[in-house]
């Protein structure tokens, strides 16, 4: 039986998913995951018209899936409905670009300084708000010419991984990518940088299933060779990691050979933190950390939680002597990649984030640590506290001029 079918049959209508949905807490009229997912899908199979604008408001945070006592793929059913949803023209245009951060990134980084200048101008932002329905309240991340440094040649006896950087690191934060490579190097791991483009998750989130499939296919092609020879893929973006682990197989699960390849890729994909925790498990983690007096707050991104790997980064950072870190445990930040940029969804995005912002305010940390690039954007936007990828901190902890 198809996965969706099982998932459909498993729903007991208990509403646990509705209870944990962040959009339900923030947008009172939102019908919630149970209705938008399994309930409507069952009626859709009967041939009834079930299209609704509300599917666009799903953040794709997967909290419904995790809350379900019966493993209904609630968000998967909503994503399928989203892919069928008809959108007005302007939003369709906007979402076309939001679905393609790879294409957008490669265009915008041809002349990054001009891009950043333009994107920073108020009139430009107002125009984008008017004609592309992109909230003027948001600032675009700065675009940087892609430079992740050279791949390191494999070395006999040394562990090596394939680093899947993803669009945010490639086009906006290549310095973070270089730090990831250094961090791995400090742990005796040599890194090859994958040439893959976008993982396809933004396409899925924007209801563009065809594009997502295209990206998944391209991703599989670019990764399968390394994986087949036993190399592990490492991601430092939780959304890319989530996509590689679940999305490829979900999208191409019915396509024989590709399905098999996507399963292989999934099995070989590791979040960087997860990978390092694995090293720690084997006693291979370089623990030569300098003491630190930092007081940090940790936010677990939704796509980290949905990978079912515990909280590797939280525990890794706790190994740095003196460093104090508190888990905010405050749910979804509300950004959800491009969701928070959308004019009509900005208020919902901020309302979802309210609990996190309050948590940060109460914890009053020097910095917030989180793996996800768009979570960091939202945190800085909503709380004015600096947000940073944990790999940067861990790498800094090795240095003698550590931030202590």
């Amino acid at each position, binding site marked *: 039986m198809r996965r969706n079918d099982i998932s459909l049959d498993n729903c007991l209508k208990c509403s646990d998913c509705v209870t944990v949905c962040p959009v339900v807490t923030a947008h*009172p009229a939102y019908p919630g995951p149970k209705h938008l997912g399994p309930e409507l899908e069952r009626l859709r199979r009967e041939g009834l018209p079930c299209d609704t604008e509300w599917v666009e408001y799903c953040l794709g945070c997967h909290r419904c899936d*995790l809350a*379900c006592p019966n493993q209904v793929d609630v968000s998967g059913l909503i994503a399928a409905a989203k892919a069928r949803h008809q959108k007005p023209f302007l939003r369709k245009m906007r979402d076309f670009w939001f679905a393609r951060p790879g294409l957008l990134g490669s265009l915008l980084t041809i002349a990054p300084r001009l891009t950043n200048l333009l994107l920073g101008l108020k009139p430009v932002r107002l125009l984008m708000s008017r004609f592309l329905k992109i909230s003027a309240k948001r600032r675009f991340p700065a675009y940087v010419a892609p430079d992740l440094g050279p791949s390191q040649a494999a070395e006999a006896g040394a562990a090596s991984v394939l680093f899947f950087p993803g669009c945010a690191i490639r086009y906006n934060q290549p310095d973070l990518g270089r730090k990831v490579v250094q961090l791995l190097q400090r742990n005796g791991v040599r890194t090859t940088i994958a040439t893959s483009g976008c993982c396809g998750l933004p396409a899925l989130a924007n209801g563009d299933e065809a594009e997502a499939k295209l990206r998944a296919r391209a991703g599989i092609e670019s990764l399968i060779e390394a994986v087949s020879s036993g190399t592990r893929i490492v991601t430092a973006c939780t959304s890319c990691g989530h996509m590689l682990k679940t999305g490829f197989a979900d999208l191409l699960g019915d396509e024989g050979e590709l399905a098999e390849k996507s399963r292989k890729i999934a*099995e070989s994909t590791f979040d960087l933190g997860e990978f390092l925790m694995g090293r720690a*498990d084997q006693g291979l983690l370089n623990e030569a950390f300098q003491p630190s007096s930092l007081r940090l707050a940790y936010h677990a991104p939704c796509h980290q939680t949905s990978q*079912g790997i*515990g909280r590797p980064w939280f525990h890794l950072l706790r190994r740095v002597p003196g460093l104090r870190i508190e888990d905010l445990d405050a749910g979804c930040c509300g950004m959800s990649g491009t969701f928070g940029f959308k004019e009509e969804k900005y208020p919902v995005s901020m309302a979802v984030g*309210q609990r996190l912002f309050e948590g940060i305010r109460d914890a009053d940390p020097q910095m917030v640590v989180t793996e996800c690039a768009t979570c960091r954007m939202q945190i800085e936007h909503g709380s004015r506290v600096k947000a940073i990828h944990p790999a940067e901190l861990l790498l800094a902890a090795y240095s003698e001029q550590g931030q202590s």
Partner: protein
Amino acid sequence: MESYRFDLVVVGAGIAGLTAAAAAAARGLRVGVVNAGFGLFVFGAGCVESRQLLPNEAPEKLGEAIEFFCDLTRRAGCPFRGGLDERRHLPTIMGSFQTIALAPFYLWNGDAAAQVRAAVVGIKGLSSFDAQFATERLNHNARRQDLNTSYVAREIELSWMPGTTATTLQLANRFDRDADFRRELQQALEPITRDTDLIILPGMLGLRSGLNEISDFERALDCPLCELPTLPPSVPGVRLSNAIERYLRKSGVEFFSGFPVRKIDLDGGRCQAVQIDAPARPLRLVGDEVILASGQFSAPLLGAEFFGVDGWLRPITRSGAVIAENLHVAGALLRSTGGHGGNERAILTGYRAGMSVAGQGGRHAAE
């Protein structure tokens, strides 16, 4: 294969699992909890019925377990009231009464034996709850059972509504997020307090609230208050579950939420690991001790040999052989007839399992 090592891995986050995890964590053990969804106790907010245990079942540890559980809920900010000898008649949305020994504080005031006049408050537009219906049935059943409380139905109207109708979940979310909403609710209730001694509300006073928030609300109202658990999602129960989980997380318990246990690795008379059905590949949690408290439907995890438990709650075969010496069973799984195991049994067996594990000490506590 990646693994995470714990002194104790608990499967299930119902009353039994949470109590077991808390008992072990309180003794300094490093505990991991695996769960998918809320425990069934949320329906009734974890109330302990007075009639659950038969007298010959009453074991010596019961008082200690109850005391521990009450202490746990107090630390978690959702304290329980009552005791094993108490018998309170708490109302339900069917207009029936439950005979309750222990309940969260926000249900405890609802005792129907008290000679008071209680107002059952409905909210205009609230779905799945009708104060008039509940009142009629409560009065009828109170007379039938010789209980002294008399009930009157009242309806209030709130300016904030999510649509033409609302659910208790929507109101609870508002209660959590919006001080103006709490104030409006309080003002709407105030006139009712003038001629009644108790306010009974459908469960809606927040999913993340606790003693502080609800007591503040009650104080501002200057009238005792109690909630009724409603159709799922039942707010008072989710609140309790949230509170205990939040407290345990803060105490260092690691939660692995959202993925079922695929397999328990049994080898050489020991449980080697618990395999979680995580995406991409199973996550292996290695526990020196494992407590299985994930309800009646998880019996297949123990294999076809599973017959019952021994005195230490370890699963045994029909011939009495221990299936795994470091594995313990707690909660509804211990009940042969299936169905809800009863919260009293869950507290007792969860506590006993947790304590017997804690008695073994812990190797991973240092971290």
